[in-house]
């Protein structure tokens, strides 16, 4: 392992000579962009509990995939998208879904525990699904992450205005012809896909770190939605890159550094700008 030097650029060049670090930076970068953007709408729509639930429900799918020997990302994706669509269709308004979501997520977590216990070598697999393992990301998962991210970004660009409008003033948006239910289902599907790829960096339990905290920080800093989205992405990118960089030299998990950086950023902004 190359030792740390004060020249950060040469450190970065040295780090990127390792293929696993290249993969981590590639996947981490697109995930941070997607999470930062989707996160803005999660915060605006007060859907952070749904985001958290989708990732924990995805845990059951991931654990099931490990059990039957397929790539966990497929289990994560299928469980979270199905439940995401279900949440959007069943619950009338995002803010009133706590009980339904909570009941489903508790059952899904229980199911995940069962799958993990049925799988002989469970400890490491379970650990990486729960807390993330970006340093072990395979090249095929980098490709899957890139493709999914691209699809999510195209979809968000298409529905950006109706989604923003419906998130801000649902009744007027509906009167102006926005299909609220359809839009809600599309958003939950995109959220489910974003959660599924973000789990690779921070794990199902720490999904807030990329999907909520950067956006929650950004909305305190600007009243313009497009700047808030940009700032949210920048915070997520900064945390992911810095987390990867530090973890190369320190023997601690990337997810700890990512969560710590976004949390400190949030605290600083909250402290400096307590009122808006």
């Amino acid at each position: 392992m190359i030792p740390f030097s004060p020249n950060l650029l040469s450190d970065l060049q040295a780090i990127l000579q390792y293929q696993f670090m290249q993969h981590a930076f590639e996947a981490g970068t697109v995930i941070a962009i997607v999470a930062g953007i989707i996160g803005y709408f999660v915060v605006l729509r007060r859907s952070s509990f749904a985001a958290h639930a989708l990732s924990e429900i995805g845990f059951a799918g991931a654990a099931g995939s490990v059990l039957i020997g397929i790539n966990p990302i497929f289990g994560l994706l299928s469980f979270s998208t199905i439940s995401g669509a279900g949440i959007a269709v069943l619950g009338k308004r995002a803010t009133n879904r706590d009980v339904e979501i909570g009941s489903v997520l508790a059952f899904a977590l229980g199911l995940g525990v069962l799958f993990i216990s049925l799988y002989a070598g469970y400890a490491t697999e379970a650990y990486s699904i729960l807390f993330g393992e970006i340093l072990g990301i395979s090249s095929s998962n980098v490709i899957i992450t890139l493709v999914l991210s691209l699809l999510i970004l195209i979809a968000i660009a298409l529905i950006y205005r109706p989604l923003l409008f419906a998130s801000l003033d649902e009744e007027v948006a509906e009167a102006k012809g926005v299909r609220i239910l359809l839009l809600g289902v599309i958003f939950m599907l995109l959220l489910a896909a974003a959660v599924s790829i973000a789990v690779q960096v921070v794990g199902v339990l720490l999904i807030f770190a990329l999907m909520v905290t950067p956006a929650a920080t950004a909305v305190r800093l600007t009243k313009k939605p497009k700047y808030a989205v940009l700032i949210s992405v920048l915070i997520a990118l900064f945390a992911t890159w810095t987390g990867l960089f530090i973890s190369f030299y320190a023997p601690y998990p990337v997810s700890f550094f990512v969560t710590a950086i976004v949390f400190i950023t949030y605290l600083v902004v909250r402290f400096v700008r307590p009122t808006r």
Partner: protein
Amino acid sequence: MGTHEEIVGAQDLTVGYTSKPVWQNASFSVNRGEFVAVIGPNGAGKTTMFRLLLGLQQPISGIINIFGAKPRRGNPNIGYIPQRHTIDNETNIACEELVRLAYSGNKLGFSLSPREEKKLASDTLAVVGATELANRSLGSLSGGELQRIFLAEALVSNPEVLLLDEPLSNLDIKRIKDLVGLMNTVVKSRNVTAFLVAHDINPLIQFLDKVIYIANGKVATGTPEEVLTSRRLTALYGTHVEVLRDSRGNIVVVGAEDYHGDQP
């Protein structure tokens, strides 16, 4: 006062659920430029009337027309202020952004003419006297300021009809007076037809061309002088109701206090 060009017309209109109509057999006509108050107890079906005109709900029977055709969803010729809003004091988004969304938020992709939209939004904010609020956060506004922004939101697409669902509730008397005055100016200067749902008719009464009074599953319409009489309201409620007037023209309806609109 409106012209005789009919903007909204209803014949034998029955709405609600097939097993439980909210109100039935209503016929009325509203002309261009008229300022109409929609009055009645809670649960009487005032918002239902707006949902019909917005094309969000279909009648059980009868005919309703707006601009000479069946209501359709997403009609840019209708500006709407709903009773409920998702916005609260945590919403840190500039007012101007909301007004812009009301103009183009139903379109896919990004705006191709952001400058024109920005100008349109600030011009509309000027109409409602809210220029200084353009860059303020929605969450930081008072009730009266918010209603001005909602009015700008409703006006930005330059509609011919305004549907205003209880914009005066939760405002103090001075702000109610200011807002009603502003709404009347907008209605008269732009020759738009406005429907306003309110609990208290008194702040509006001097500006009104028509009243649509909904109670007890029935609808009474006409000028305020025609509808707000003891005889008409007694017939409407099906119980003795007295309409009293003070020297300044304010009215009090006595006898309908115990009535609840959600009762059959």
